[in-house]
C-alpha cells in the first residue's frame, strides 16, 4: 500500500524527521558495568561551542518506571548497573558538537563486584543487582526473589511419577546468545513542546500508546499532555516496543525550548538496546521405549540484564514453549528472568520462542536417535491434536500441526534423510500465540466514495495494516485502492495495543469488521430512504448500494449524509476473548495461554564441510498453519524474512560479552545474513481457520523466527553425527566438535 513512497525515497521515517531549529541530542553511557556513581560533572561540556543543554539525573524527576517491575530510571543516579547505562544527555546544534560534549563530561565512579551471567547472579552470596528490589512496585503476580525478578511455573500431574513410568530419561542442557533485532533504521525520536505544556514526540516506536504512558510517567504529566506520532518505522521486530530515545528527546527539548532529535548509533544498539535475552535451558524428558513422552521437567533461565523489562513476561511465555506442541501428561516447567550487570534485554520477534524451541526440539531428535526412531515419527506420535489440552489446560482448536509436519517432511524429501556423506536433513516444529489486546478503529466514507481507516496501530512493514484494510475493503465491497489509512497518533487515532505479538492484522482486521457492520447499517438505512427501496432488498457491491434495479454510490450517500446527517462514520473495537485455562496449573505467570495458536514445521537440507565446519543450506521449507491466508504473498514475505532472521541466530549472530562489555558493538562483527547467506525459502501455507481471527486468520509475523535454530541443529546432527547445543552454530563449533569426536 505504501510501497511507491518507499521505492522512490519519499516515505518519511522517524530517522528522517526534522523540524526547523532542531537540536541534536546524544547520550553519555557508562563504560563501567557495575559501579557506585560518585560524581558527574558536566560543567566543561556545557560551555563547549554549540552545546545548548546537558542533563543528568539531577535535572530530571526521580521516577522509577518499567512494565512489570518499576526498577529503571532515565539516568543512573547513585548506582551504575550495566556498561551502556545512560548517565547524561547533551543537546547541541549539530551531532558532532553533541558528541564532542559527551567526551567532556567527567564521571567518577567506584567499581562494584559485578554479576555477569545467570550462574553468577544465582550463586549463593551473589551481589544483588537491585538491593532494594523488594521495595519496588511490581505486578503482584510475579514471584521475585533477589536477582530473580520472576519465576513463572507450570505444574501438571506429577513429573516424578512420570519419570518412573518412563523407560528412558533424557537430560540435556542448551545455551543461546543474545541477538539483536537488526532493524535497518536506528531508533529515533524528535520532541517538541508547545506553549500549552504539551509535548509531541515523533518516534519510530511499535507501541505509541505505551510510549505515551511511559513518557507521562517519566515527565510526571497527565498522558493527555503527551502526544506520540509514528511517522514511519524502518523495522522493529520487538526492538522498538519500549522507550528508547523518546525520553531523552523530550527532556532535552524541555530544557532547551527547542525541538530535539535523538537517534541511536550502531554501538548503542548493540550495547544498550532490547536485544534478545540470552538463555540457559535444562530439559529432562521421560519417554517410553516406543516413543511416548511421559514427563518433562524443564527450566529456562533468561539473562534479563540490569532491569526486568519484558523479562518476567517472556519467562512466562517460555514455559508454554518448553512444553512444546506435545501431549505430555506430567510437567514441571519453570522460566526465570534473572538480573545481571548487562543491558536490559528485551523482546525480539517471538520472544522466548527460538531459545526454548532450540532446546526442546534438539532434545526430540536426541531422543529419537537414542531410541532408534525416526524424528518425524516421534513427533507425530506426541503432537497435540484437535480438542486436546495445552500445557495449562486450554482447549486447542484448529490444530494444523500434523499437516504442517507431513507437508514439510514430504517437501524436503524426508525419506532420504542422509542423501550423501556430510549431508543431512532436519525438522523442527512448534506453536505460538496470536497476542490479544484491544484495537479500535474509526472508519469514514468520504464524499468521493473512498474510505478512511483511522487506527492507532503503526505499519511496521509487515503489511498488517494492508491486511486490515483488505478486510475492510472486502466487507464494504470497495477496492483496496479506495482505502486510505491514518495511523498511530495518540491524540487523534483510537487506542491500539500496538504492532506486537503477530496481532495487528488479526485485531485491527476484526475491529474493522465491527466498524463495517455499523457502517453498513447506516449506509443501508440512508440508501433505503434515498432510493425508496426496502433495506432487505439492498446490497453493497463495487462501491455502491444496489437493489430493485436502483443504485446509489457510496460517495453519493456520503454527500447526502454530510449535508443532512454529519457524514457516514463508524467506529469498531475488538478485544480477543480470554482463552480459558486451568489457573491451578500456573504460578507467577503473566501469559498463561496461547490465543488462537498457530502451528508450524520447518525442514532443511544442508551439507557440512567436514574440515572447515562450514554449513551450506541447499533447501529450506516452512509449513505454517496461518488459519486463513488473507494475503498469501505478504505472508510468504513474513516467512522468508523470519527465517532469514532465524538463520542469523542459528548460524552467525551473537552479541559477544567479555566481563560485561560487548566486544562486537558494530556491524563489522555483528554478523547479520547478507543476500549471499540466505537460501530460497519454500513456504507452504496450511489453513486451519481459527475461531476468532478475521476469516479465520492467525498471527503470522513471529512464528517463522522460532524453528530455524532447531531445524539447523537437527540437520547438522543428521549430516555429521555431531550435536551442537549452543547458539550460534558456527562453522568453528562444528569443526572443533568434529575434531574432538575424531580423537
Amino acid at each position, binding site marked *: 500500500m*505504501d*510501497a*511507491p*513512497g*518507499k*521505492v*522512490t*525515497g*519519499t*516515505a*518519511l*521515517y522517524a*530517522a*528522517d524527521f*526534522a523540524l526547523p531549529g532542531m537540536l541534536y541530542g546524544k547520550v553519555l553511557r557508562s563504560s563501567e558495568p557495575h559501579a557506585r556513581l560518585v560524581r558527574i560533572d558536566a560543567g566543561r561540556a556545557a560551555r563547549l561551542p554549540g552545546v545548548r543543554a546537558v542533563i543528568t539525573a539531577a535535572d530530571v524527576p526521580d521516577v522509577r518506571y518499567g512494565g512489570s517491575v518499576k526498577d529503571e530510571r532515565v539516568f543512573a543516579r547513585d548506582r551504575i548497573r550495566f556498561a551502556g547505562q545512560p548517565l547524561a544527555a547533551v543537546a547541541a546544534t549539530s551531532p*558532532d558538537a553533541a558528541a564532542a560534549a559527551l567526551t567532556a563530561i567527567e564521571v567518577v565512579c567506584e567499581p562494584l563486584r559485578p554479576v555477569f551471567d545467570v550462574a553468577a547472579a544465582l550463586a549463593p552470596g551473589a551481589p544483588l543487582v537491585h538491593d532494594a528490589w523488594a521495595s519496588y512496585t511490581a505486578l503482584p503476580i510475579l514471584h521475585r526473589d533477589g536477582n530473580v525478578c520472576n519465576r513463572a511455573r507450570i505444574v501438571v500431574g506429577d513429573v516424578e511419577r512420570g519419570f518412573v513410568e518412563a523407560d528412558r530419561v533424557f537430560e540435556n542442557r542448551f545455551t543461546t546468545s543474545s541477538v539483536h*533485532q*537488526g*532493524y*535497518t*533504521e*536506528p531508533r529515533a525520536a524528535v520532541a517538541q513542546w508547545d506553549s500549552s505544556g504539551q509535548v509531541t514526540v515523533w518516534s519510530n516506536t511499535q507501541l505509541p500508546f505505551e510510549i505515551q504512558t511511559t513518557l507521562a510517567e517519566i515527565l510526571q504529566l497527565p498522558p493527555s499532555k503527551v502526544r506520540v506520532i509514528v511517522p514511519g*518505522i*524502518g*523495522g*522493529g*521486530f520487538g526492538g522498538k516496543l519500549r522507550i528508547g530515545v523518546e525520553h531523552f528527546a523530550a527532556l532535552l527539548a524541555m530544557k532547551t525550548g527547542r525541538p530535539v532529535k535523538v*537517534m541511536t*548509533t*550502531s554501538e548503542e544498539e548493540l550495547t544498550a538496546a532490547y536485544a534478545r535475552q540470552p538463555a540457559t535451558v535444562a530439559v529432562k524428558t521421560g519417554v517410553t521405549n516406543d516413543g511416548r513422552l511421559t514427563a518433562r521437567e524443564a527450566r529456562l533461565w533468561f539473562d534479563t540484564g540490569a532491569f526486568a523489562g519484558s523479562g518476567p513476561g517472556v519467562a512466562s511465555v517460555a514455559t508454554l514453549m518448553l512444553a512444546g506442541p506435545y501431549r505430555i501428561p506430567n510437567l514441571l516447567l519453570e522460566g526465570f528472568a534473572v538480573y545481571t550487570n548487562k543491558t536490559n534485554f528485551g523482546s525480539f520477534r517471538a520472544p522466548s520462542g527460538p531459545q526454548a524451541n532450540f532446546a526442546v526440539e534438539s532434545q526430540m531428535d536426541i531422543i529419537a536417535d537414542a531410541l532408534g526412531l525416526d524424528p518425524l515419527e516421534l513427533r507425530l506420535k506426541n503432537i497435540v491434536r484437535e480438542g486436546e489440552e495445552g500445557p495449562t489446560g486450554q482447549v486447542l482448536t484448529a490444530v494444523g500441526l500434523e499437516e504442517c509436519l507431513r507437508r514439510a517432511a514430504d517437501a524436503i524429501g524426508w525419506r532420504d534423510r542422509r542423501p550423501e556423506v556430510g549431508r543431512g536433513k532436519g525438522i523442527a516444529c512448534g506453536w505460538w500465540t496470536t497476542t490479544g489486546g484491544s484495537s479500535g478503529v474509526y472508519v469514514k466514507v468520504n464524499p468521493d466514495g473512498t474510505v478512511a481507516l483511522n487506527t492507532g496501530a503503526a505499519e*511496521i*512493514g*509487515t*503489511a498488517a495494516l494492508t491486511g486490515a484494510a483488505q478486510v475492510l475493503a472486502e466487507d464494504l465491497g470497495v477496492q483496496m485502492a479506495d482505502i486510505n489509512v491514518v495511523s498511530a497518533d495518540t491524540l487523534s487515532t483510537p487506542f491500539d495495543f500496538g504492532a506486537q505479538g503477530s496481532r495487528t492484522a488479526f485485531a485491527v482486521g476484526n475491529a474493522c469488521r465491527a466498524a463495517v457492520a455499523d457502517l453498513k447499517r447506516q449506509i443501508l438505512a440512508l440508501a433505503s430512504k434515498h432510493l425508496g427501496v426496502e433495506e432487505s432488498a439492498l446490497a453493497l457491491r463495487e462501491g455502491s448500494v444496489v437493489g430493485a434495479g436502483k443504485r446509489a454510490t457510496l460517495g453519493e450517500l456520503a454527500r447526502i449524509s454530510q449535508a443532512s446527517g454529519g457524514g457516514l462514520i463508524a467506529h469498531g473495537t475488538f478485544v480477543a476473548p480470554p482463552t480459558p485455562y486451568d489457573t491451578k496449573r500456573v504460578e507467577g505467570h503473566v501469559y498463561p495461554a496461547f490465543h488462537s495458536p498457530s502451528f508450524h514445521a520447518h525442514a532443511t537440507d544442508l551439507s557440512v564441510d567436514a574440515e572447515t565446519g562450514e554449513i551450506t543450506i541447499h533447501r529450506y521449507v516452512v509449513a505454517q498453519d496461518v488459519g486463513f491466508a488473507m494475503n498469501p*504473498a*505478504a505472508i*510468504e*514475505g513474513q516467512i*522468508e*524474512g*523470519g*527465517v*532469514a*532472521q532465524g538463520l542469523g541466530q542459528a548460524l552467525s549472530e551473537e552479541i559477544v560479552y567479555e566481563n560485561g562489555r560487548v566486544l562486537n558493538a*558494530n*556491524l*563489522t562483527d555483528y554478523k*547479520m545474513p*547478507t*543476500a*549471499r547467506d*540466505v537460501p*530460497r*525459502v519454500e513456504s507452504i501455507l496450511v489453513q486451519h481457520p481459527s475461531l476468532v481471527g478475521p476469516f479465520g486468520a492467525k498471527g503470522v509475523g513471529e512464528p517463522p523466527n522460532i524453528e530455524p535454530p532447531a531445524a539447523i541443529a537437527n540437520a547438522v546432527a543428521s549430516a555429521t553425527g555431531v550435536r551442537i547445543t549452543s547458539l550460534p552454530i558456527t562453522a568453528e563449533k562444528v569443526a572443533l566438535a568434529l575434531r574432538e569426536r575424531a580423537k
Partner: protein
Amino acid sequence: MTRIALSLTINGQTHDVLAEPHRTLLDVLRTDLGLIGTKENCLEAECGVCTVLLEGAAVNACILLAAQCQGRAIVTIEGLAAPGQLHPLQRAFIDHGAVQCGYCIPGMILAAKAYLDTNPEPDGDGVREALAGNLCRCTGYQRIIDAVLSAARALRTSPPSQAAR
C-alpha cells in the same frame, strides 16, 4: 569551524552548499539538501542503506566526504526517475512484494541499478553477490532478487525513456 563552499551535482542539478570539510555526503544530502531518500544507519559502510551512485558506481555515502564529490555526478534515489514516474527497478520491487519496512530499499535499488548497468543479463547468484553490501532484515532477500531479475528483463526489452541522469 570553517566551512568550505561546495558545488555538488546531484541528479543533474547543481547544489551550492557551505559545509565543514569533515562532513559526509550522506550528512549533506540529508541535512542540508533534504534528500532523505538516502538513508542513515551504521555510518561504517556495512549496511548499504546510504548507497548512492557516484559516476555511475554504487558507493556508501556515509564514508564519502562531501568535499570529495565536487565535479562528480551523483545520483540518489530521488533522481532515478522523473517525479511521478517509476524506474523499471522501482516498478519491479513493488510488483514482486520486495518492499516491507522499506528502509533498505533506496540503497538496494541503486546498488541493483549500478549492477544492471554493467551486467544487463544477470543470474540470481550474480544479483545476490552484487547486493551483498546491502542488508535487509525484513524480506530474506528472495523477493528483492526476483525483482532485480525481472527488472533486468524489462530493461532489456524496453529501456526506460527517462533514463537516470
